[in-house]
């Protein structure tokens, strides 16, 4: 049932391109803060930070990369069993006046990003906020759009996108799973 759409090398290439695009739009790594949304967004943010440090000399990824937990800001908290939050770790320099790039694995309804924007608001006032996603699968509920996209994947709502990353899942791939009618996965 599951069909692999991105393999390890594809993911690496997509992240390298996103890193270059981030640097290009920010004109370097100055005042850049990259915040991953748990769980897999944090891993992706760390990788992007590592790639940027490899491109731009003198950049310390640890001072640039962090995580932003959005559990408390979700709009569906009362509709699910209690969720366990993850830590939020903002680089020591803070986010005031910075360029913040939010990183998530899959961009879907946009509700996670809405929650992340609210969470950011309580942490400080960035100069600009950008959004990077490894996969954009469409079907937005809110007027939100990604600035940096690894791959656009047209899907139907009853399909599942599985992002597996070596640090968490032991393997590395993006796959589509479980369309009710086989072969109808390109209706978007």
């Amino acid at each position, binding site marked *: 049932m599951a069909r692999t759409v991105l393999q390890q090398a594809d993911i690496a290439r997509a992240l390298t391109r996103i890193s270059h695009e981030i640097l290009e739009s920010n004109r370097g790594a100055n005042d850049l803060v990259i915040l991953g949304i748990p769980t897999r967004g944090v891993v992706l943010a760390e990788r992007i930070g590592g790639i940027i440090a490899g491109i731009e000399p003198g950049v310390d990824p640890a001072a640039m990369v962090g995580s932003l*937990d959005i*559990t*408390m*800001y979700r709009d569906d*908290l*009362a*509709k*699910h*069993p*209690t*969720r*366990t*939050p*993850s*830590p*939020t770790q903002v680089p020591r320099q803070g986010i005031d006046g910075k360029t913040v790039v939010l990183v998530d694995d899959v961009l879907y309804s946009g509700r996670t990003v809405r929650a992340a924007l*609210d969470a950011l608001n*309580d*942490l*400080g006032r960035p100069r600009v906020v950008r959004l990077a996603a490894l996969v954009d699968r469409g079907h937005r509920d809110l007027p939100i759009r990604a600035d940096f996209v690894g791959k656009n994947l047209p899907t139907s709502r009853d399909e599942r996108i599985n992002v597996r990353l070596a640090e968490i899942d032991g393997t590395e791939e993006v796959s589509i799973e479980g369309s009710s009618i086989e072969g109808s996965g390109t209706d978007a």
Partner: protein
Amino acid sequence: MRHLLSTKDLTRDEAVRILDIAEDMADVSTREVKKLPALRGKTVVNLFFEDSTRTRISFEAAAKRLSADVINFSAKGSSVSKGESLKDTAQTLAAMGADGVVIRHHASGAPQVLAQSGWIDAAIVNAGDGTHEHPTQALLDAFTMRRRLFPGESRGRGLDGVSVVIVGDILHSRVARSNLWLLRTLGATVTFVAPATLVPLGADTWPADISFDLDATLALTQPDVVMMLRIQSERMNAAYFPTAREYARQWGLDDERLGRLRPDSIVMHPGPMNRGLEISAGAADSAQSTVLEQVANGVSIRMAVLYLLLSGEREALA
């Protein structure tokens, strides 16, 4: 988790989860905007049948930081002093739409009654009932120990191998009882030290060592944690020890005993302190004392508990 009535009911995983969430809540307390929207639109009632300023304001601060609305209900000057029963009070709160009730009551088991009665469909948090339990105090004590003893790497772990000596009025102390169950669940060892008159009947069946001699116990166990309990003068209607001075000399943590502790041992007290009785000013204000940390951590723990009980979908009544 639907209610928090006793630390005896908590599994190790549940307890560690509460402590870990409290770490996240503690991070929030260091931010400029110390507020989370998680409990927006929920109502928390502080139902206090017994005087307590610090526990009530701690719960109040916790609920407010999670954006819940807080109603304070104290028995003094309320309908309770006119003879209203717990049932009628509970049904009144239910009719007002309370999602969570934090209850402190002078009768052991009152929170249990409220939780099982069906009078009110709200999450019940025990904030101290009689001489039974005070679970959030035990949780904040465990949280404080974990942060002090394992700085920077406290997440996800219990208190395995930590030795805790709890000194004072074990007979009346719900803090001692809640701490015992929780600390055992988390893997710590507990020794109670008290005058024989302040050890309850049946304490020999508890999973704790009992000692009547503070100096011998401190010398023998070299504890990681010494927790002094308050001598509750309001409960002292019988003569449990000859004089306060004799108590302080035998079972108080004075400067001399403080000096004999390991330099990395911590000194805890649930407050309010009787300085000069169970704890000397020198011990209370020393670098080893965690008294103020306990207060700050209390808010984080209560945020974690309220979040866990109130944020998710309501579980069906068991």
